């Protein structure tokens, strides 16, 4: 683009113009010092720097916009594969079982559930894939292998990108306590609610918010399940090495609590602050409800908040 402008100037624009032809261009050309090596070098370096700057800008465009497009296609494929799988194999919803165990056959890189966050709008839906490598997370939010499955006791943990690649967890910091996060498997809907924030733990019982319908079944876990859950609050910011946030009982890696005493948690992780990987933003939620999947049935939480 730059050379075009430069040369047009000399060859075309001015040379063809009678008015200028007589005086200025000729004089101008002669005024220029000869193309010395130093001139060439300085110009070459300048052009190289401008070019590198453009490449960096282009990379930002790629990261923030182009990867969105590439990931959208992959997410669509994964969803289509999941839909066709769900429609082809017939499974009856299991009876409500308080001690249900993992029952999904999770295959790395394949979607196994759909996830909705109604407060982010009706169009916020993603198919969750198994695995959290770069490749998996390009498709959509990824389930940490070896963490609990949806609706299972323990900690169903999901990682997702905050910037680019579809940025599923872009607005994760905006989630407030009691906001619902709905997970759908082939047979069941699970409604998770964000736990009270650390600032709300004190005095939750007297907080008017706790009386809201959305907060039914939501209370600081330290009050309902004991001190072992004292560090499990709605949102936290940790350093990347703190893998204990996705432990069955967050922050209690060595804890030996029988599965039937464990809460059914959902944990979302993404990078923090935005555009950085210095820290991780963590959101913890607890299962408050589940429904069997039925034709035409949509959980009321999907339309409410």
């Amino acid at each position, binding site marked *: 683009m730059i*050379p075009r402008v430069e040369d047009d100037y000399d060859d075309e624009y001015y040379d063809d113009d009678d008015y200028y032809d007589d005086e200025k261009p000729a004089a101008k050309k002669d005024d220029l010092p000869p193309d010395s090596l130093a001139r060439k070098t300085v110009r070459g370096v300048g052009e190289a720097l401008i070019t590198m700057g453009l490449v960096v800008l282009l990379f930002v465009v790629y990261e923030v916009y182009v990867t969105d497009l590439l990931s959208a296609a992959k997410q669509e494929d994964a969803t289509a594969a999941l839909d066709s799988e769900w429609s082809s194999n017939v499974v009856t919803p299991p009876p409500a079982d308080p001690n249900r165990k993992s029952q999904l056959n999770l295959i790395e890189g394949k979607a196994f559930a759909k996830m909705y966050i109604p407060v982010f709008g009706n169009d916020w839906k993603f198919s969750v894939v198994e695995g959290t490598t*770069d490749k998996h997370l390009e498709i959509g939010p990824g389930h940490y292998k070896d963490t609990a499955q949806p609706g299972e006791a323990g900690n169903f943990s999901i990682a997702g990108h905050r910037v680019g690649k579809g940025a599923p967890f872009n607005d994760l910091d905006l989630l407030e306590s009691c906001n619902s996060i709905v997970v759908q498997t082939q047979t069941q809907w699970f409604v998770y609610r964000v736990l009270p924030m650390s600032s709300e733990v004190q005095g939750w019982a007297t907080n008017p918010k706790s009386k809201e319908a959305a907060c039914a079944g939501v209370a600081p876990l330290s009050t309902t399940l004991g001190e072992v859950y004292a560090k499990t609050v709605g949102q936290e910011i940790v350093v990347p090495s703190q893998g204990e946030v996705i432990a069955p009982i967050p922050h209690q890696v060595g804890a030996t609590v029988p599965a039937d005493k464990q809460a059914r948690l959902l944990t979302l992780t993404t990078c923090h602050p935005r555009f950085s990987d210095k820290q991780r933003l963590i959101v913890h939620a607890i299962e408050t409800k589940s429904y069997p999947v039925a034709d035409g049935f949509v959980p009321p939480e999907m339309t409410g908040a």
Partner: protein
Amino acid sequence: MYSWIWRHLPGPTVVRVLEAVVLALAVVALLMFVVFPWAEPKLPFNNVTTQ
């Protein structure tokens, strides 16, 4: 660099402009679909998981 490329593009000005545009697009495409996807995993700011 840029003027050198311009001088070496064949044809009249209109054709050269088209050639320059095609050349620029080719470079952008090469960056977008080959270089950036290769470089991206080597850069740190996209990690979202905990270890």
